């Protein structure tokens, strides 16, 4: 499985309240959630994001609330992969469970810049910044996690 797209870059401790503010949690509609994704730290995100784009951030991405609405909003907005130095643990679990690919890679998270064109190979864990020509090695997911993601999430995986 591969992904390629333009990077939207953020810093440390991107919390679930900015990924999807609680004022929009009165719905579980994926489409509605996507319309407000990242709006408290990047008001133009929903306008700029294109299907397949990649989100890159630094440490402790997705800290805070357990709301699964956060990875859902990111995935439904078109993002194909999130790369960070580290993820908060509930977000990490939720992302896998809903089939949003994520990778931990400190060097990539520090060096890749907003607007770069990046490709990711989930089988090998290789991240390539096409804009700068640099490559990075992330730990790839074991096959069973890759299968959950490619099936579209845990429930689809266990009921297929």
């Amino acid at each position, binding site marked *: 499985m591969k992904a390629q797209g333009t990077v939207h870059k953020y810093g440390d401790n991107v919390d679930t309240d900015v990924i999807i503010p609680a004022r929009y949690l009165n719905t579980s509609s994926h489409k509605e959630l996507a319309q407000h994704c990242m709006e408290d*730290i990047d008001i133009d995100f929903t306008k700029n994001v294109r299907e397949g784009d990649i989100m890159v951030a630094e440490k402790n991405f997705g800290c805070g609330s357990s709301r699964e609405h956060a990875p859902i909003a990111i995935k439904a907005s078109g993002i194909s992969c999130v790369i960070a130095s580290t993820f908060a643990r509930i977000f990490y679990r*939720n992302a896998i469970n809903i089939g949003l690919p994520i990778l931990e890679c400190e060097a990539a998270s520090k060096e890749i810049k907003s607007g770069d064109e990046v490709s990711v190979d989930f089988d090998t864990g290789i991240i390539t910044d096409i804009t700068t020509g640099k490559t990075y090695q992330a730990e790839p997911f074991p096959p069973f996690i890759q299968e959950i993601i490619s099936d579209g999430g845990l*429930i689809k995986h266990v009921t297929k």
Partner: protein
Amino acid sequence: MGMTMSQKILAAHAGLPQVKAGQLIEAKLDMVLGNDITSPVAINVFNDGKAVSVFDNTKIAMVMDHFTPNKDIKAAEQCKQVRQFADKYDIKNFFDVGQMGIEHSLLPEKGLVGPGTLCIGADSHTCTYGALGAFSTGVGSTDMAAGMISGKTWFKVPSAIRFNLINKPAEYISGKDIILHIIGMIGVDGALYRSMEFFGDGLKYLSIDDRLCIANMAIEAGAKNGIFPVDDITREYIMDRFKGEAVEYTADDDAEYDEEYTIDLSALRPTVAFPHLPENARTVDEIAPTEVKIDQAVIGSCTNGRISDLRAAADVLRGKKVAKGVRCIIIPSTQSVYLQAMHEGLFDIFIEAGAVVSTPTCGPCLGGHMGILAKGERAISTTNRNFVGRMGHVESEVYLASPAVAAASAVTGYITDPAKVCEN
């Protein structure tokens, strides 16, 4: 090699004699929790998975606490969806308006969690129950759905950090000051993926409410769970409450801890976390008397809405007035806390001071309702998060503190040391 308290509970529920950090296990769950925001997503997943039954209708709790009493039509629809699910599957611990309280106050109070319990909840503050010697942790809605169907979930066994809390807390030092101090010290990812285990002779001075507050905010340091050993204070609290069989787990003498910290509770000072992270801790001595002017004070939440929190606020507010221009909102966390506070006359103190008292709700903590901030406004709050936009406008600010500090600040209109208000 020995095991930590957390590892022992996981091993017992996985049917294994021994587990070690990093091991993947599948464990049986004693309680699966959701609220009015996370349960609808879990119910959708449950239905998508074509599930037809729950594993045990007595081991699932659904608490309508976040946007209730319904703040708008969409919130009402979400509660309706959960209510119908609870009816259909005869969920015994469904708590609607009238019975509900803030989930992490309610479950311990109702005796649904206790020593040795393994609990997952689709709410990040599920880690609260570690105060009672339980292993409990927050998960997302898909994990909640899978837990409701199978009664099991997988865990990666966490390593742990040991915190030795020593000596008697100084005056006005509560569980909140202790945990804000710790998060200030280790950072919002200082315990990422790990357990925070609390020990030391200082524990005997910490009430269950203090411990619930400390375990509650373990997640704000990134921890998987926070846990306390069971002692007489725990045993007294669970007596006549806990419906399960209490199992007390102690850490082995040779249990391995990644790091160890010792905190002298007698040396702590009232502590405030500045925007926009819980790790931005400062003591009241580091804040000038008119440095931080506030528009609102919120006293409540799963962190600090219990009876001892309300008593601490009342001790400061007794015979005083909330400053002009400050809205002081007090939210007892459950119906029984509400009744108790009413019987003790605390509401007279609050209302005569010019504060308002609300029915239990998570409300303003997550910017839901009952106290939203306008652009540029500042709140001192006994809640647990001060992220950007957490309580309202993206340009508003939240300062986290104990009930005593919040009440004292409500009186002066600025973030204030409670000792300064009470000596006058």
